[in-house]
């Protein structure tokens, strides 16, 4: 009974449009992904899907602060829900955002609740903090997870580690 590292993926030279975990073991209770991310373009949040499901089965809601104000938004079901914050190309060199995405009861056959917490850093007055929740209406056990960009790439040295909590 423990928190077990399943896989760590580090983005190499040239960047990557997506990071994917496949063949996720089904013997855990929850999944946690810890991410350090930077985007090569201007996208401040990367996206995710589960089981390669690209239908509009994800209902996201978030609370976001930027250093001066906070706001909250909820969205109609999307096919590319928000995952976590990331720094962007114009930010201070070598800064990366950190965050975790948590999926509970991932091996069950009911809809899934997902929690996200992330922060970016720019060595400046403005930086983002994101608390987000996503309801995924798919009922299949989660066997794969995709993290991806809608513009630009995951920059070199971005990392994602998937843990099983059992």
């Amino acid at each position, binding site marked *: 009974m*423990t928190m077990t590292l399943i896989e760590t993926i580090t983005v190499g030279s040239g960047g990557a449009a997506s990071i994917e975990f496949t063949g996720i073991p089904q013997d855990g*209770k929850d999944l946690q992904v810890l991410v350090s991310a930077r985007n090569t373009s201007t996208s401040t949040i990367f996206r995710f899907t589960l089981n390669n499901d690209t239908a509009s089965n994800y209902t996201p*809601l978030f609370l976001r602060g930027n250093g001066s104000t*906070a706001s909250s938004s909820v969205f109609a079901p999307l096919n590319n829900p928000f995952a976590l914050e990331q720094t962007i190309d114009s930010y201070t060199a070598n800064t990366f955002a950190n965050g975790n995405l*948590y999926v509970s009861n991932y091996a069950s056959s009911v809809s899934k609740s997902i929690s996200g917490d992330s922060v970016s850093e720019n060595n400046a007055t403005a930086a983002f903090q994101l608390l987000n929740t996503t309801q995924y209406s798919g009922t299949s056990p989660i066997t794969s997870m995709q993290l991806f960009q809608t513009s630009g790439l995951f920059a070199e040295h971005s990392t994602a580690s998937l843990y099983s909590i059992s």
Partner: protein
Amino acid sequence: MATPTYDLLESVTLATAASSVTFSSIDQSYGDLIIIVNALGSTTLEARIRLNSDSGSNYNSVRMSGNGSSATSASLASQTSGYLSVIADATTGEAILLKLELQDYAATDKHTSILARANQSATGTEATALRWASTAAVTAIEILTSTGNWAIGGTFNLYGVAK
């Protein structure tokens, strides 16, 4: 070889609806505790926490919340149980994902601090910091409802984080 640091101490899956779930006789050898709740409410309710069966006015909290249209912050002082989150009723079909962290729970020289993250797109997302105004070590944790019940099938998992 690395030492496991995240141990499942107790897991409860509700076979019948219940107004509370209690973890008792908690092992005192860990540094922190983590509780993961994934459950539906029988009605719109508040999730709350009570430690060591203490129903005195000893729970204080500050929270920030987003409901999809606005961001707010509020505090509650001298409560008889600690506020964790609002939960929509079961008709939404959406279980809440509640993550609780109790730091240094076995200490006897400080008040116990709790960080709570609640997630339910039907109601919102919240982050709450709580303080239990007692220096007693935490030996029992009750996750209760303000009204109504936790629905059948709800899961409540208690983990110990090694120090």
